[in-house]
């Protein structure tokens, strides 16, 4: 009897090992397929752009045809390189300002509908949900006219303002703060702190994890945003990376040297953020999904 038991156990162990090999293998294959385009892009960034147009993304790793020319060009300080770094700087500034303002505004809005009981609380919450139900593209044209009327066309404010009160960010802060004890507010009041002080000095530090999660997601959105900035920005010295890179795709003299190396460089800042804040991303994107 004990003999068959051990046989059974070891056979199930073998089964588990085989399952584990298969499951891990599946992820290895899927990951490899998913990484492939980016790797191919990285390899292509070490080759002349002309070759890219003629041959498509090449898979060959032949080092004799690879060099650092594209990157040298990007850093050499000529007009093209200056242009690229200006886009880079514009994207940086736009991202940092957008993230900072979005987080502050959304935190306070969420704080209001989570921490207080007031007459329009439920209405406000429903409106937050409602704004999530209409894709931005539908509002795009009237918003565009509005921004022109406000004389904010071709300004950073025009790009940022419509998105600062992001409902998904409000919603996430709300989900996070729901679980925080409201007694903290009362104890703050007893200590003589006013409502604004409580929101800033007592509750904000407690909500820090939510800030990290939302910061990374907002940063990704702002850094990669394309459609709206494409409508608003008109002068080339205000372009962000996404629009700037897109202008390199002219039907004539396609500037692929700069395009592909510049694209690879453009991923780096957001990749660093991702690696630093990776564990917060899961919390950030899923607050809405779990609670339904």
């Amino acid at each position: 009897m004990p003999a068959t038991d051990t046989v059974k156990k070891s056979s199930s162990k073998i089964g588990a090992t085989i399952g584990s090999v298969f499951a891990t293998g599946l992820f290895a294959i899927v990951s490899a397929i998913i990484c492939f385009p980016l790797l191919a892009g990285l390899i292509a960034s070490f080759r002349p752009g002309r070759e890219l147009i003629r041959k498509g993304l090449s898979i060959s790793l032949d080092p004799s045809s690879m060099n650092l020319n594209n990157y040298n060009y990007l850093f050499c300080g000529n007009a093209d390189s200056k242009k690229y770094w200006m886009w880079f700087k514009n994207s940086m500034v736009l991202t940092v300002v957008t993230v900072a303002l979005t987080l502050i505004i959304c935190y306070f809005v969420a704080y209001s509908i989570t921490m207080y009981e007031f007459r329009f609380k439920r209405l406000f919450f429903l409106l937050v949900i409602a704004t999530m139900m209409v894709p931005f593209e539908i509002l795009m044209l009237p918003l565009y006219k509005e921004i022109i009327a406000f004389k904010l066309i071709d300004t950073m404010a025009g790009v940022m303002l419509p998105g600062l009160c992001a409902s998904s960010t409000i919603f996430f802060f709300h989900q996070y703060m729901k679980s925080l004890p409201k007694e903290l507010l009362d104890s703050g009041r007893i200590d003589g702190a006013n409502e604004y002080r409580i929101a800033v000095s007592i509750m904000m530090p407690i909500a820090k994890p939510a800030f990290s999660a939302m910061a990374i997601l907002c940063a990704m959105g702002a850094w990669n945003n394309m459609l709206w900035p494409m409508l608003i920005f008109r002068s080339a010295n205000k372009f962000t990376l996404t629009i700037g890179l897109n202008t390199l795709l002219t039907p004539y003299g396609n500037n692929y040297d700069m395009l592909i190396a510049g694209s690879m460089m453009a991923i780096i800042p957001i990749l660093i953020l991702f690696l630093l804040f990776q564990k917060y991303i899961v919390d950030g994107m899923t607050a809405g999904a779990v609670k339904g």
Partner: protein
Amino acid sequence: MRWILNSNITGGAGAIEAKASHSSKKEGNTLSFKKFLYSQKTAPYVFALPFILSFTIFWIYPLFSAIIMSFQDIGAVTTKFIGIKNYTKLLKDSVFHIAMANSFEYMLFTCLLLIPFPLLYAVLMDSNLVKAKGLWKALLYVPALTSVVISGTLFRLMFSEYKTGQLNVLMTMLGLPAMKWLKVKFTSEIALLLLCCWRWTGVNMLYFLSGLKSIDKSLYESADIDGATSWQKFKFITIPLMKPTTIYVLTISIYAGLSMFLESFMLWAGNSSPNNIGLTIVGYLYKRGIEKDDMGYACAVGVVLMVLGLIINFVQLGLNGTLKKEED
């Protein structure tokens, strides 16, 4: 604010006296104003003020003007009300029909591809079978970090019609003829869907993974005691409890699929594709509104898109019982 006006109007002989009396009044008013501003009743409104402003200026107003504009003929100088003419024109506009069909098809296939597979990956990821989980999770998420400009360009180059494009190299390896991927409807649809799967599989997997994490593990333990098989556990515990997450992912996928634009914009390096094989509803809206400056007609396209999205999602939410639950 009235005291400021008052003190400005008052002038002449009694100015100093008036000023003195006003300043004491002002102090009283400021105090009570301060008290009002700092009260527990006012604070939530002050906090929510940015939302109220942003909601009115950047949501309600454009939403209503989109609807109003859709009934107008908006020229450079004059704007006139033309009733439902934009909509009747849309009914007969064959290019718009192509765009509708493309968007609808894309939405359908992205839902079919981007829900079952990420769910499967998430279930595997949640089990003890997979080693080096952190690495795979990170790698699957990386495409979501790239902007459409970059991913679209990479995919266009991969699907290049030259023999040396990767997909054609692959075809040659398999002994198949090279293809003009982005010039034929069927193959370009594949390219678009692959681009979409490439970018969103990891993201959706994380959605499902966090849904799985919220399932009470003791349910599985008691199922184990009752002698349930893995399949039974999956069918009777995982699937029902994953419903809210799945509905959420489905809802956002429907909206994202219907309003897709930039992917096609980048894959064909601009808003025009051969025989409009890559044209989407938003692509048509962009073409009409921005490129051809026919805002009224473009807004009608937008309104149709909105109504379509709302109908599909309400039907979907009604069928799976989410709407009923909220009424209870």
